[in-house]
């Protein structure tokens, strides 16, 4: 029920983000979703890709610091209040969200929200019990 995200350390100087995109593009790695956290000095690029191993390897070969992180993907109907229900549930169970990002599926009916929790297992159990659709990693990678 968990999804593997790759995270990349990016120094705050021009061209680094473009470099990551170029390396992945040339290696034929497809990006499903991404988010960039930025500070004044550095950024952390988080990606869900179709081929994690290849992405990680090729970026490391090019001198980037890369790590894998387990995140949780939830599918919600793309309508007002969809996100609010999830957050209320998490709040009720006192589960912290470290960060999150979202995208809308191709057919346009559902949105996928990627969450990074401090207690991943507990979050999955809670959300599943409440009837939320926690996506398998494979589904997301091939989406």
């Amino acid at each position, binding site marked *: 029920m968990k999804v593997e*995200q790759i995270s990349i*350390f990016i*120094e705050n100087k021009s061209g680094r983000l473009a470099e990551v995109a170029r390396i992945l593009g040339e290696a034929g790695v497809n990006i499903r979703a991404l988010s960039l956290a930025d500070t004044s*000095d550095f950024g*952390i690029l988080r990606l869900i890709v179709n081929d994690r191993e290849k992405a990680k390897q090729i970026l490391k070969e090019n001198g*980037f*610091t*890369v790590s894998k992180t387990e995140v949780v993907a939830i599918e919600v109907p793309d309508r007002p209040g969809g996100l609010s229900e999830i957050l209320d549930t998490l709040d009720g169970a006192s589960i912290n969200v470290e960060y999150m990002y979202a995208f809308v599926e191709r057919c346009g009916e559902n949105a996928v929200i990627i969450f990074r929790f401090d207690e991943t297992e507990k979050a999955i159990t809670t959300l599943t019990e409440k009837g939320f659709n926690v996506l398998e990693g494979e589904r997301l990678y091939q989406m």
Partner: protein
Amino acid sequence: MFYNEDFETLPRPALEAMQLKRLKSVIERVYNKVPFYRQSFDNAGIKPEAIKSIEDIARLPFTYKQDMRESYPYGLFATGMDDIVRIHASSGTTGKPTVVGYTRKDIDVWSELMARSFVSAGVHKGDIIHNAYGYGLFTGGLGAHYGAERLGASVIPMSGGNTKRQILIMKDFGSTVLTCTPSYSLYLAEAAFEEGIDFKSLDLRVGIFGAEPWSESMRAEIEDKLNLSAIDIYGLSEIMGPGVAIECIEAKCGLHIWEDHFIPEIIDPATGLPVPEGEKGELVITTITKEGIPLIRYRTRDITSITYQPCPCGRTHARIARMSGRSDDMLIIRGVNVFPSQIEAILMEIEGVEPHYLLIVDRKENLDTLEVQVEVDEKLFSDEVKHLQNLSLTIEKEIKDLLGVTCKVRLVEPKTIMRSEGKAKRVIDNREIR
């Protein structure tokens, strides 16, 4: 183990008597042969015959690197060029190089002292010495080379650079001893790792590292990554080259300085007065047997302390502490004295921090700023911003608490700090000196 047991374990009264005899002789010689010294002694109002004890050395004026530059190239030589068989020069990063000349006997003494140093480090005949100190005008390569041959070990004259080939040869030739700068040893380890070669599979047993200041924590890191016993060696071309002082493998606690050839003093660099035994100050050396270019009370600019306490290894020669910096690479940041080696020691205490760092000093609106660049590798990296920011804050706080200077830590991508195949460049000072 000793190379020359009689001299290395000479009881101190005999050693000091020998020093005094040799000191008197060198003072007499430079006064008569080197116009610079005649003038400098005359200016200080001191005649050679006034030196009656080793303590009297403090009455003599100092010799500075500047004096060597001003007499460039051969002005301080005490023999004619007929007797000089070798010339070396320092890199001269700030001004003209300093030039030194060796007579045949000087080379002979240097070879012996370097052979003694190898044995002190636990090296013996039969060892295969991979000598990655640079060959050329720099004294490191040839100094270690001659010592290795004198000892009867097999020496591979690698010199610096061409790292991939170094690793191949180290592996295929079965090198048991590595000689290079400490920063280059870590660079080698990193390169070997990328080539898929594990240092633990090599035959290396001892590493002899010098020519730049390093720390105890860096020793631990080198010993772990290269799987060998790391020994600190000290030397400088003005005095001789490598092998002026070295640790013994028995104690690894201070570097024995070969006192039958050098008289060390530790002084306060500001006042020039001696500091008590065990206290830090600048190392001053007088060469008492050198013929080509004897130096009297040479200001090394290296900061250390000295002890005359007996050592478990049995050598009677005094020990100087690991160099904790140089009095001239000392940074003064907002009035606080900071040695790059102190910051290195702090970084190495923090889990996962690699010894590749760069200090950038600048002055903004009349206020000094210090930026410490640290490389983020997989051990330090986190997908969460707060963890990386905590890392920066931790380092900033440690430096503030221990050194009293405020700095800004900047996390950079791995391998972006320039690697050096010789002496590592640790400081960029962008301040305009007025």
